[in-house]
């Protein structure tokens, strides 16, 4: 976890230039918070029109094309990834991309595997998370809608009942803000509950990340929408739900292995705490946080 060279170096981030014409008499004190907020949401809406929350499948060659004039090591790594993954999906970089990717990848995994036992196992862990939040003093009504919406999605990817959905419908739901935002908030609640419950364990990592208290970290970096996830969030979610997560980093670090290039990754494997059942599902892959990869031969 402390392995800092695995923290993704944003690959070739093309800074989005917003053309703002500053006039000489433009004074910041003329702008109120609400103006700033409005402008921010206008920018998000522009983005929203361009990228869905979860994109269509794309071949890795489309990623290659993007980095053509970039660092040669990235191109080599993309080639290596191409041997392991058949396609990628991009997610919108709005600060919730980790949670949205996880939602899609996990539900897609259940839809394809029809693994009843896995659904039962996760449901048991979800109930434990509910209990955690109650024990921490959260009012039920502030989180129950988010829990029930997630459980509904989980049920619906299992086939054979009236509420069952197809793969196309799952893609649509993952792009529907009213579903996706609720599921993201469900994950944020679960993540925050896990961090608070095991605050002693998480404290040193949080100190290293943001130099704040556990309480403050949860309030400012976990519970609000749009706050980006880091290794602390991923560890907590992985432990709480008992679902393993693999993050693949597409960065410029050299990863020579036996003369050839390999792509570094980090596996988050759940630590079973107080008897929480740990599964072995490992199906989330992110490149530099914004792209999910799809395993070959679906």
């Amino acid at each position, binding site marked *: 976890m402390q392995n800092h060279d695995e923290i993704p170096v944003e690959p070739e981030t093309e800074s989005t230039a917003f053309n703002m014409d500053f006039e000489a008499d433009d004074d910041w*004190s003329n702008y*109120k*918070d*609400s103006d700033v*907020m409005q402008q921010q949401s206008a920018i998000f809406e522009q983005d929203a029109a361009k990228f869905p929350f979860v994109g269509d499948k794309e071949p890795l060659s489309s990623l290659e094309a993007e980095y053509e004039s970039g660092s040669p090591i990235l191109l080599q790594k993309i080639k290596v990834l191409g041997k392991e993954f058949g396609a990628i999906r991009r997610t919108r970089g709005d600060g919730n991309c980790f949670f949205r990717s996880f939602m899609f990848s996990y539900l897609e995994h259940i839809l394809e595997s029809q693994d009843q036992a896995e659904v039962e196992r996760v449901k048991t862990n979800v109930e434990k998370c509910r209990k955690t939040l109650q024990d921490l003093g*959260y*009012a039920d*009504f*502030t*989180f129950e*809608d*988010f829990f029930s919406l997630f459980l509904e999605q989980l049920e619906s990817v299992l086939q054979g009942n009236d509420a069952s959905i197809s793969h196309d419908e799952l893609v649509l739901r993952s792009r529907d803000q*009213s579903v996706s*935002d*609720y599921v993201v*908030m469900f994950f*944020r*609640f679960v993540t925050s509950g896990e961090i608070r419950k095991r605050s002693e364990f998480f404290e040193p990592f949080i100190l290293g990340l943001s130099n704040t208290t556990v309480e403050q970290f949860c*309030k*400012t970096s976990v*519970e*609000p*929408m*749009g706050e980006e996830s880091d290794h602390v969030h991923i560890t907590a979610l992985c432990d709480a739900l008992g679902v393993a997560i693999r993050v693949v980093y597409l960065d410029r670090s050299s990863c020579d292995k036996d003369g050839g290039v390999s792509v570094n990754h980090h596996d988050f494997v759940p630590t079973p705490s107080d008897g929480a059942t740990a599964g072995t599902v490992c199906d989330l892959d992110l490149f530099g946080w914004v792209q999910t990869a799809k395993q070959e031969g679906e």
Partner: protein
Amino acid sequence: MSTPARKRLMRDFKRLQQDPPAGISGAPYDNNIMLWNAVIFGPDDTPWDGGTFKLTLQFSEDYPNKPPTVRFISRMFHPNIYADGSICLDILQNQWSPIYDVAAILTSIQSLLCDPNPNSPANSEAARLFSENKREYNRKVREIVEQSWTAD
């Protein structure tokens, strides 16, 4: 029509009625659950003591994923409150989370009264007096408290 936002607001209201935090009250308009009136009482033993400050909370169908628009109706003098009554408070902006219900919003605003953040001033005069001339600041606050009794 019952939407997730409306259902949630009914529960917010129930909680506020059953378990009201000290010094705040709030309720939706008779025929509109999306628009609330609220009153915050100035905390005891502070310059705000005795004030009754009125606010409105306007909710959208995105609630609780988006915060309501909260605004003081009563005239205010405070470093983080604009002339039009809108409030500069992180949880009402980028630090919003559905974890906050109406009771929590009003409690946070109540504690903001006595615990301003002069680093992000909405009222620069109030921010200046708060840091440089507490006596004059407190006098202005008392004026606002007295006005809060007479304004309709």
